[in-house]
């Protein structure tokens, strides 16, 4: 492997580039014209533009990506996350084209991509899954089975992921209608209308385990991450290790993850997601067959470059680590900076990156693909960048993250930086009293206050005084006399 094509954009493309460079590998990025001035394109050794009707379509155009790989002489393709990362057909096409796909084999992607089959396989291997019922052609039987799962329950799309297509049903009366809606949505979003239901665990934590497997049947885990702070099933804040696990719980969880990897014949980096009930029980959720957005927290505590490990695994090399070599040190947090307005229901915002000053300091890492002048549109996901903070313990990591968020200057597009800082400052977050509805539960506390008092005066002063002519238009002595009347 000499030259790797990155079939992605934004922060993850830049992230992968950095590792390629340290490993002495050449890089090619593909991009839509809208990203022509992006950081990834600027930093890559080569860039290939893909013409497409929409910006997103460019990153989903398998034929064009393969053509770009051929023309640039790349011998491997890293898909990043999202887009084609978990598309088995793409992985297959890459391999057919004689290139290396940096990820699991298509067979594994396909198996784990079907959430229904994945659950069955995991359950067969003897790992816990939530009580569930799977859609079948016999709608009446399915409905009955679903009722037996008990309420509240969660309806999910078989082909879904990342929280899309999920709905909570709290009463039997609503079930049938909700199932119909879910099927329609699944059909529209994934071209696969199959759904399944599972027991909805109240106040669960979302804990996942990073796994790493080579082509030689070696499987190990890099510890867990907790991603319970979510909004509409989208992770907002992730951390490693999970703050409340006992050593025994951690061991069981990680061993289950490795067992599942072994059971499915996993290769490359992946993530096994679990639902962790307040009772201490955990249930398998799904396996993400790719690099996760939140992988940096694992990197920060283990000191392992996950992208480098992915590339080595893809090259067919055996793992360079044994399980006992993996030692977690301290605590790491990641927050996702998104182009959204916390003041109006987190609706997406657009703009132009007018000013960007990434924060620094001990343990602070800024993963961004942004550069000044870049337009932020609704063409892509709203995530702008990630901020990662590492500390000797959780409290220090939180303190560093809060300071980093205050130090981050990202102007031109409204974002959730101040909101994240507020979440991290909440006492319930400090005491790690987390669950997947944390943000809803504390919504009132977390609402950002508007500018008032001296802060407002300071803000208005900055806004007004930046125009040097402001105040220069009223001449003396009028200016100094104030609102004098005779």
């Amino acid at each position, binding site marked *: 492997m000499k030259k790797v094509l990155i079939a992605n954009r934004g922060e993850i493309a830049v992230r992968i580039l950095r590792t390629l460079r340290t490993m002495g590998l050449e890089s090619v990025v593909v991009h839509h014209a809208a990203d022509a001035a992006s950081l990834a394109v600027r930093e890559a050794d080569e860039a290939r533009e893909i013409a497409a009707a929409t910006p997103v379509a460019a990153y989903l155009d398998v034929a064009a990506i393969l053509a770009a790989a051929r023309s640039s002489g790349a011998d491997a393709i890293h898909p990043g996350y999202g887009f084609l990362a978990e598309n088995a057909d793409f992985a297959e096409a890459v391999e057919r084209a004689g290139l290396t796909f940096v990820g699991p084999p298509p067979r594994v992607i396909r198996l784990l991509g079907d959430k229904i089959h994945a659950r069955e396989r995991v359950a067969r291997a003897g790992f816990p899954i939530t009580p569930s019922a799977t859609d079948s052609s016999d709608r009446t039987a399915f409905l009955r089975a679903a009722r037996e799962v008990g309420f509240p329950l969660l309806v999910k799309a078989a082909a879904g992921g990342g929280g899309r297509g999920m709905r909570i049903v709290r009463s039997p009366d609503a079930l049938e209608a909700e199932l119909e809606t879910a099927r329609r949505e699944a059909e529209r979003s994934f071209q696969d209308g199959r759904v399944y239901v599972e027991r909805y665990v109240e106040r669960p934590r979302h804990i996942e385990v990073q796994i790493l497997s080579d082509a030689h049947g070696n499987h190990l885990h890099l510890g867990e991450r907790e991603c319970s702070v979510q909004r509409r099933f989208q992770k907002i804040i992730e951390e490693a290790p999970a703050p409340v696990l006992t050593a025994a719980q951690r061991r069981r969880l990680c061993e289950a993850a490795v067992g599942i990897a072994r059971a499915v014949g996993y290769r490359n980096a992946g993530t096994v997601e679990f639902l962790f009930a307040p009772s201490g029980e955990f249930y398998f959720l799904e396996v993400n067959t790719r690099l996760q957005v939140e992988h940096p927290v694992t990197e920060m505590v283990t000191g392992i470059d996950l992208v480098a490990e992915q590339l080595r695994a893809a090259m067919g090399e055996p793992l360079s680590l044994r399980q006992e070599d993996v030692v977690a040190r301290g605590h790491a947090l990641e927050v996702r900076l998104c182009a959204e307005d916390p003041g109006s229901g987190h609706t997406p915002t657009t703009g132009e990156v007018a000013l960007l000053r990434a924060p620094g300091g001990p343990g602070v890492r800024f993963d961004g693909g942004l550069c000044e002048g870049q337009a932020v549109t609704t063409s892509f996901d709203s995530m702008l960048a990630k901020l990662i903070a590492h500390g000797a313990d959780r409290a220090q990591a939180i303190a560093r993250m809060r300071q980093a968020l205050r130090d981050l200057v990202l102007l031109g597009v409204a974002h959730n930086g101040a909101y994240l800082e507020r979440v991290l400052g909440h006492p319930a977050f400090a005491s790690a009293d987390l669950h997947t509805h944390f943000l809803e539960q504390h919504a009132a506390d977390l609402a950002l206050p508007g500018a008032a008092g001296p802060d407002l005066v300071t803000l208005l002063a900055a806004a007004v005084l930046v125009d040097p002519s402001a105040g220069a*238009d*009223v001449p003396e*002595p*009028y200016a100094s*006399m*104030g609102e*004098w009347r*005779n």
Partner: protein
Amino acid sequence: MRRIQSNVDTRSETFLENQRHNRRLIDELRRRQEEVRFRRPQRDIDRLTRQKKLLVRDRLSLLLDPGTPFLELSTLAANMAYDGEVPGAGQVTGIGMVAGREVVIRADDASVKGGAWYPLSVKKIVRALDIAIENRLPVVHICDSAGGFLPLQADLFADRYYAGRMFRNQCALSKMGVPQVAIVVGHCTAGGAYIPALSEYSVIVRGTGAIFLGGPPLVKAATGEVVTADELGGCDLHTQVSGTADYPAASEPEAIAIARDVVAQLRRPTKTDIDTADAEPPAYDPEELYGIVPREVKVQFDMREIIARLVDGSRFHEYQPAYGTTLVCGFARIWGYPVGILANNGVLFNDSSLKGAHFIELCNHNRTPLVFLQNITGYMVGREYEARGITKDGAKMIMAQTGSVVPKFTVIVNGSFGAGNYGMCGRAYDPRLLFMWPQGQISVMGGEQAAGVLSEIKVRQLEREGRSLGAEEIAAIREPIVEEYTRRSSAYYSTSELWDDGLLDPVDTRNALAIALSCSLNTPFADPSYGVFRF
């Protein structure tokens, strides 16, 4: 420049009594100003509300740059005329900031007789436009007037300084390159129609604004045509068809905002380059002025104590401190502007007159504006002084003062009597602005003397008719004469008749003069030249 060392004992009985007296006078002034500005019969306010019109004071605050001063002129005009029923002569005039430009504002007050123009209204308007001409100040007119008050037309129409003068002044301003902006928020009828028409820019409010030579009733009477005010001269007609007005506005606030935007386009004047400095407040508290001005006009006081509370840092460079000491002359600064001050410390003698004439010439050549602080009973009389040529020395002072090319400003601090008024730049000598303090008196001679002279004549006349009068009868003759004389020499009478540009609370004098000085620098100073001095 040396700081004046005040000799006032602020704990003395005299000071405290003066203070009580003068504060009472100021309270009275404030009360009367407040009434003129805000007290209106409810029905007039209701009528304006019904017509969706703002009160003139609200219009003003929308127009002016917030946080900036407004020097209102002749607030109490007509306070002793028309049975006191035309407060402010139905006009608001003054100097203020609009979009960072120094402008004269002239506004009709429709809450007073529908904004009708009385003779003193016309005088006030002409005066405002004179100020604009002399100081090259753009004018913003807020037009809402029923036109000339017909029953008094003989006193406002035909003479040189009557209504025609308003339009003549508008043309003069335009010819000088000084623009005017008219905001038509009500009717501009008959002559009033020329105000927007003669303005460089005009804004008119749809619905309430109208401009026509003859209103609907007059048109009906003249030609039988029945037409509404809006059809006859409304916003759309004038901004779309006739071109009489420039900018349509949907509301008064919008009209005023447009006018502000227009003014923001006007070029800023180049100020006459005089040696200004950073401003500095007086070292002595101006509030102490109340304790310094005596209760009686005939009680003498040191004008330096007044100067110390008007000028920057209370610093005063006194010229000829040992000569002609009844006229204090010297240099100082007001809000950073250099001024030459002439202030009366007693009757004018030959030496003080010569000193004054000489100092005026110095200021003209030094390009220093002149400030006259009047407290003057006149020039000295008597054989000795006539023999020394007091009349020709006084004439020299008048000649020098009248021939001045630097701007002049006058404040009548206390008495202003006889030819002293002339030498010290009274109204007739075109000071750019002339203010009066409320206890001031102004007449050809002091009230007591004048009443004495007048009653003496009357008594002699009666005696010639063979009647001999007792002390009581003489007093009965004398009293009404004194009363009438006092009334017509009071500051309130002066300001009612627009002999001044307004009564000032003494502590406001410094700001008023600073604004006046700032305005005066819009007009270049001519080269010094004088008439013939009699030596």
